[in-house]
Structures are given as structure tokens and as C-alpha cells.
């Protein structure tokens, strides 16, 4: 579980944060804080689908479901091994 969490957290830090000083955690809101905007959500989704070999239906990829690393992990876990 920690591996998935850290994998996603590191991806978000590397791809979406411009400032090295900014620190985010598993519970930091990503969408509602503006770190990841609605257009960028698509690239985040593609990352999750590629990395975990899953397909997340558009209806489930809501801003709320992708808003924190913990939420994302819960979403991904619904589709892994299914």
C-alpha cells in the first residue's frame, strides 16, 4: 500500500509542483487547492491507468475522487486485479 501511495505522491510532486519549497502529503487537496487543474486531471488519469494497468470510467474520475493521494489510492484499489 505504501508503495502505491508514494508512487502517486512522487508523481504529483515531480509533475505538478513548480516550487521545490512546497510540501504536500497524502491528504493535501490537489484539485481543490489548484495544484492540479481540471485540464491536468486527464494526464493524472492517464498516468494511473498506465502505471496500474487499469481502466477508470470517466464517471468515477471526479475531482473529489482525485483530490488527495489517499483518495486516488482508494480509487485505484477499486480497479486493481479486476
Amino acid at each position: 500500500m505504501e508503495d502505491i501511495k508514494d508512487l502517486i505522491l512522487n508523481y504529483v510532486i515531480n509533475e505538478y509542483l513548480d516550487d521545490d519549497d512546497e510540501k504536500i502529503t497524502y491528504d493535501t487537496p490537489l484539485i481543490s487547492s489548484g495544484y492540479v487543474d481540471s485540464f491536468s486531471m486527464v494526464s493524472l488519469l492517464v498516468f494511473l491507468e498506465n502505471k496500474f494497468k487499469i481502466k477508470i470510467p470517466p464517471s468515477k474520475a471526479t475531482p473529489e475522487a482525485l483530490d488527495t493521494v489517499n483518495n486516488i489510492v482508494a480509487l485505484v484499489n477499486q480497479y486493481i486485479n479486476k
Partner: protein
Amino acid sequence: MSNFGLYEDRIKNFDWSVTEKELEYTDGNILNIGWYCSDRICQKGKADKTALFYEGFGGIKKEYSFNDIRLAGNTIGTFLRSIGIKDEDRVCLFLDRIPELYFSFLGILKIGAIVQPLFSAFGDESLFVRLENAQTRAIITQRKHLSKVRKVLERLPNLEFIVIVDHNKTKELESKEIPFSLQESKPVENFEIFPTKGESPSLLHYTSGTTGQPKGVKHVHYSIISQYLTSRWVLDLQEDDIYWCTADPGWVTGTSYGIIGPWSLGITQCVLDAGFSAQAWYKFIEDYRITMWYSAPTAIRSLMKAGEDVVRDFDLSSLRHLASVGEPLNSEAVIWSQKMFGKPFHDTFWQTETGSIMITNFPGMKVKPGSMGRSFPGISGVVLDAKKYEPISEPGQVGLIAFKPGWPAMMRGYWNNEEKYREKFINGWYLTGDRASIDVDGYFWFVGRDDDVINTGGHLVSPFEVESALLEHPAVGESAVVAKPDEINMEVVKAFITLKPGFKPGPDLELEIMNFIRKKLSSIAMPQSIEYMEKLPKTRSGKIMRRLLHAKEWGEDIGDISTLEND
């Protein structure tokens, strides 16, 4: 009762001097938007009235009076003068929607310099081409965006000052970087406003076209005449209103109606600097008792998608008037807002180049869901025959939306691009690049763009700019970019690419290319999908037939393909 009253009464003998009288302006006098939006309001006895309710992410709340914003504008203006910024120098605002963005806007105008607002989500290449074109002398930014500025600084010899408004001393300052803290600066009470005139340049907003690099749309201080009156008659702003314009000042709506319109009227406005969430937006309306809400179809469709239950969790009874801008507002959204809020969103149509609202569904008038509305008084709006460039008189026939130049907020040129500016006018008409029909009642009905520019979520994206950026990725051989239909954003960017030898198509490469464009240009310009092709369709002369790819995406007839290259 709305400010506007009856359409027939308003168009009768209309003259823009109605605003000049209200603003006590006479031709040839000093006219400075920064002064009109702050000092004048204070002189009118509203110094203590709230100008801005600000809420940032994490619950940060601030409130500023008109006197506060007057002092903040003076203080920033004084600082800019102290480092040598002069009238007509371009000063870029590369900031999130923090209070300093709004106050710097006033300060730059007060010293007679030109504001160049840029969307803070722009990537380094988007930033570079706009700063280079404008020969920008100073940029005001935040720590979080500094890395993008540093990346392009070497290629920008005219950029002399990088002002950081939230420097916290954890980062070493580099060449040309200057910290500035509004909180730690002594407020400047007495300030000599630069004596700008009506035709003095005020703003440079960048917009995208089908070909070439983005164009800097030059506006002048006299634009306030249109922006003030349209804010009164279309947005229906009234003395006790609490107003929320959801647009970012990196785009023209965020300055014309997110700063100039409301503040020149002395209206209290709210700013929410956070990402989109239906709950957060409704809570914001409830908390601040917002009465007038100016938003965009993409946001409205996102709210619709979030469902009806969430609306009922909040008290939104304060809402008095709603309006929308950015792209055509579909009839479903108008009907939905009537059902959910008890009032419809009123569509407004205008552009970066027009500077103010041109066509709209007016408050108090019948709203035709799906229609753009009627021309604003004093605006000669028509649809032109696409071949003869003459007005079409027959109702329902589709033509090019055009306006007779002469309204106060009309752009005065494209920066360093006289040729492109001239191309916008034919037969004495300003061509918008959009197509529509007009019905028997004079209501405009949007049909689509007349060019390949992509309107995604109300933002124009140049296919040329994205195609050029794609070619800089090591794997991409050729590229073609078109609009793809999208339920929320109306259109999104889709790229068709061929790969160079040695590269294999696959989902990981697709993601890599998406992120490459997002960082280089912006998330808006990032292709939401990429299709690999063996070869792109071309004419026999070698030109990529974007039209065929567009037709494929939209399920349209591909038309004449006689010029298509054959193997």
C-alpha cells in the same frame, strides 16, 4: 428593477457620452483606470466600503476597503517607480489570484505603465513568447512560479526586473530578482498619478490565432467607458451587490469585469483563489451572500455534472442575477440554472479584442435559451456574407459575426503586428472569426468558429502553437492539432502525430508527450488525447489537411478531397 430598462429606450439616441457624464470625464482630460477604480471611489465617500473579499486555499480570508486598495496601488506604483519603471513600459503580472495581483494592476496603471497579465499556469515557452513579443521590462511573480521565469530569463534581454511578492528568504535570489512585500512596505498616502489620456495604452492581453505566435491585444484607458456601462447594464451591478467574477485576470474577462467594471462602479467583489469544486463554489456563494455571479459555460456544465443534490445543501437565495461568458452557453445550462437557482444564466459574447460585452441577453429581457442575445446599444453587430463581406439581412442565414469599429473598448492594435491587425478588418467591419445567424427578433445564434482556433473551456488555443511545440519533442516527426468535442469544455485539444524512426507508439509515450506540452505551454494546450498515425493526410503540395482530421473527430462530411496526396 434592472439598471437596463427597455431595449428600445436604450438604443434610441444612444451615445457613449452617457458614461463620460457619469464618470465626469470630458474629452482630452486625464483618464487613468487605476485612479478611477480606487481614488475616485474614495473621493465619492466610499473609502471604507469593502472593495475585495479574498479567500485563498486553506481558509485564508482577507478583506480590503476601497481605501486599502487605493493605498496598495500607490505603494506598488511607488515601488515600481523606485526601480525605474516608466510610463508605457510593459509590466507582466504572473501571479495566482492573490490580492497583490489586483493591487499591482492598479499600481502599474497609476504610473502610466502597461499591464501585461499572463495566466500563471502557463509553461515556460508560453511565458517566453509573450514576454519576448512585448519586450517586457518587469515581471511581478511568486516563488512558486519563479522556476519558469528563471528558465527563460537568459533569452529575454529586455527583462530587467523580476519582482517576487512572497520571498521568504529560503531561496537565494538570483540575477535581476527583487523581493517586494506589500505587508512590510509603508503605505503610500500621497501619490502623483501619471497623467494618462484616453488613448494612452493600458493593457496588453495575449490571444491565440490559427497561425503564427500569440498576438498582444493593445487596449487603452478609454476602454473603461465601455466596461463601466456594460457592467451597469449587462451585469446589472448595483450599489449593494456582492459580485463574483470567476475568471482569472490572466484572461480579458478577469480584467474587464474582474477588476475595471466592478471597481469603477465602487462595487464589492469576491475572489476565490482555489481549484474548482462544486461544494467549494456553492459554499463561497453562501458564505459571502453573493448577489451577482459572472461565470463560464465550462464551470456551469461542471456544476451540472456534480448533480442537483449538492445545490440543495447550500443556501443560494442571495443570487439575484447570473451571466456567462467564454463560449456558447447551451440551452440545457440555461434551463438548468432556471430550475436550480430560480434564474437563468444570461449569455454574453465578446472577445479579447473587443474589450467589452458586445452581444448579450439583457437583464429584464426575454432570454432565449441557447441564444447569444442582442447587440449592446451603440454596437452595430451583423453577420456578413462570407464571400462578399456584406451584411446578411435574411433572418436565420449563417454568416460571419462582425462589428462596425468605434466603441470605446475596441483594441487599438496588435503589439508589433500591424499586418495581423489590418487583416481583422474588411469593408469597414471588424471580423470576430465566429459564425452565427440572427433571428427575426435580432437575437444572435452561435454556429462555430470560422477558423481552426480551438475554444477549450472558454480559452482560445492555437493549433499552430501546439503543433510547433510537439515538434520539439524528440519522438515526434509530424503533428496536426484539431478540436475534439467535449461534454464539459465544449472542445479540447487532440493531436495526431507521426513518430520519428526508433520510437514506438504506446501509452507511456503518450503521457510523456502530454506532460511535455503541459509544462511547455499550459494544461489548457495539452492534448487530451493523442493518436499515432503512419502518415498525416496532406495536399499534393505537402500541406497537412487539418480539415480532414477535424471532420473525423466531429463525424462530419470530409468534403472535397481532390487535393489529397495519394501514394
